[in-house]
């Protein structure tokens, strides 16, 4: 099936009424989650995982994916109107978006953010449709050593892309991998580190850990900050349209941000956030009015908003083509695929074309729904911000607990949720990044299986693993990424000296 046939087939799947409804619910919840502080997209995806049991695998993935990219839209609303980024990837939008709102130009800022996100979504879908099949073909040549190297590359890049120092990041990687070793060993089935809990022989579930680290920990942080309900700026529909000059200034940043964001999305880590910062820096450099940045330059909203949505779409490629999650949200999607019995990896496109192409095409449908939801109905979402914080917090607390319990009716799961929530709250204070742990936990089983299979394959001659060109290339890339800051310092030092 070529890309065009695939997209058309995908639309036939996406337009089935159940999938259309799943997509709508997903993007609606995503927008609400993006607007409201607290649970975040990963927590919301984990929470709604049990609700997807009644759906087909394609429907489940369409809904969960909708939550993820929908939250990117919602996050920008609070960033522009309240200077409170709903999502970390909307932080940059506060710089010029809020300034525009303060000058009575909230409408054009919201409009450009929505259009930028839509264009980036479109670029993302086209990219997914064309790059996805190519990457799948390449991935079919991968053996266990290549998968092992890919996981290692992902963890190495991730360690460098977060705020943590390298040693702290490695501690988090090791902690996540250590948790992934609990339960049955993949080759021999030997039970490990279960401490007498029968349920732990199946391994530690990703969902309670992710819910704890993204939901409960955020709730505890909110309790500490004592967030107050703020009255947002009112925006009328007729005030939304940008001027001709706004359009002229916005299109180039939107185009650049969309492409850049998509490419960033292919890389492991919090790429949506990094893409926004890079886009902002680039637009400022290219602008004829750099002095306006930080004071309400529309380019400072258009570029980053396109970049964060482009990155959100790009992040689906490693998952859908290689079966490897490079972001916590992708890890939740992988969990959903496994629950629904879908074999992930390069053959997914052949064995489950309705899932791959259905999700790809649904993103376009979802982005269109988001455009409709986020422009005429902006006032409805903004009014959510008038809900008292105590009401949001108490509902989120109960949803985290009951939602986690409901997945497998397990008390152990909600204890894991609480412990991981408290741990993540304390870890963040000590500048350890829990997102790395979550991702290492998701990658752990893939890494261990491919590592052990590789050793079996080369009969213990482990140097042979590094003699394979793709494996060697990935490991060298990872090492270069790890060493890059030190090398750059050295280079600057010698240049200055």
């Amino acid at each position, binding site marked *: 099936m070529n890309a065009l046939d695939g997209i058309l087939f995908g639309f036939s799947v996406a337009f089935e009424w159940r999938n259309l409804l799943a997509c709508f619910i997903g993007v609606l919840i995503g927008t609400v989650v993006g607007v409201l502080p607290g649970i975040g997209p990963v927590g919301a995806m984990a929470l709604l995982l049990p609700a997807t049991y009644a759906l087909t695998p394609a429907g489940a993935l369409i809904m969960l994916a909708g939550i993820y990219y929908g939250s990117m839209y919602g996050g920008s609303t609070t960033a522009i109107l309240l200077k409170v980024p709903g999502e970390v990837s909307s932080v940059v939008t506060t710089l010029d978006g809020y300034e525009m709102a303060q000058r009575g130009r909230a409408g054009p800022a919201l409009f450009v953010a929505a259009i930028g996100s839509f264009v980036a979504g479109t670029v993302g879908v086209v990219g997914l449709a064309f790059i996805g099949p190519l990457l799948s073909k390449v991935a079919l040549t991968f053996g266990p050593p290549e998968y092992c190297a890919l996981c290692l590359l992902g963890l190495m890049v991730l360690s460098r892309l977060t705020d943590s120092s390298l040693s702290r990041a*490695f501690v988090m990687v090791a902690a996540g991998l250590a948790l992934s070793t609990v339960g049955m060993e993949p080759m021999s089935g030997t039970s490990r580190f279960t401490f007498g809990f029968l349920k732990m022989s199946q391994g530690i579930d990703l969902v309670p850990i992710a819910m704890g680290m993204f939901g409960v920990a955020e709730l505890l942080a909110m309790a*500490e900050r004592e967030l107050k309900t703020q009255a947002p700026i009112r925006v009328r529909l007729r005030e939304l349209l940008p001027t001709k000059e706004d359009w002229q200034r916005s299109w180039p940043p939107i185009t650049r941000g969309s492409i850049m964001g998509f490419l960033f999305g292919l890389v492991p880590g919090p790429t949506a956030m990094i893409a926004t910062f890079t886009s902002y820096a680039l637009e400022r450099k290219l602008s004829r009015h750099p002095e306006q940045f930080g004071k309400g330059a529309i380019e400072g909203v258009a570029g980053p908003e396109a970049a964060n949505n482009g990155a959100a779409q790009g992040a689906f490629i490693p998952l859908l083509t290689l079966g490897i999650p490079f972001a916590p949200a992708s890890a939740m999607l992988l969990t959903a695929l496994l629950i629904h019995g879908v074999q992930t990896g390069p053959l997914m496109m052949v064995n489950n074309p309705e899932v791959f192409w259905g999700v790809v095409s649904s993103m376009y449908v979802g982005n269109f729904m988001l455009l409709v939801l986020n422009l005429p109905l902006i006032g409805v979402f903004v009014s959510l911000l008038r809900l008292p914080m*105590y009401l949001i917090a108490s509902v989120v607390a*109960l949803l985290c607990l009951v939602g986690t319990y409901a997945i497998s009716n397990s*008390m152990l799961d*909600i204890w894991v949720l*609480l412990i991981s929530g*408290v741990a993540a709250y304390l870890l963040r204070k000590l500048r350890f990044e829990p997102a790395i742990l979550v991702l290492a936990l998701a990658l752990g089983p893939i890494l261990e299986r491919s590592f052990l299979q590789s050793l079996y394959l080369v009969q213990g001659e482990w140097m042979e693993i590094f003699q394979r060109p793709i494996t060697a290339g990935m490991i060298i890339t990872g090492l270069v990424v790890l060493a890059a800051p030190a090398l750059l310092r050295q280079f600057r030092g010698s240049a200055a000296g």
Partner: protein
Amino acid sequence: MNSRTAGLAAAVLFLVIGSGQIYMSLALPRGTLAEPGPGVFPLLVGALMSASSIACLVLAIVERTPLEFGLLKDAARPAVLVVALAAFLVLLPRVGFILPSLLLQVVTLQVFGMRGVWRRLAVAAVITAAAVLLFETLLGVQFPAPTWSF
């Protein structure tokens, strides 16, 4: 506890966990390089954690930059919330869903600044009723049967 002590304590804790992982992995069969056993991967992970923790320990001793947030700044409200969440978990299998949920809601509402005991109770009752309707009646979630009888 200042930030430096907290950093040291975290590094030591991870070193203990890493060493524990190594110790427990050594009890598992390790096989050979050609036929690795179930202890190999956890052993490598334990070694990675121990080595990284030692690096963190050194950094915590050398580093002078303060942490972004004070460790125990305004910790009372989060601590109360943790106790309420733990109480929910302890009570749920013993008395069923309704009472622990009400208790959790009342405490959470208070922690986040809702005033008035009766208002808190009323809102907690509405949220609990909505949760029972959504999860038990509509989604068919089976909460643990109470083991305590009154």
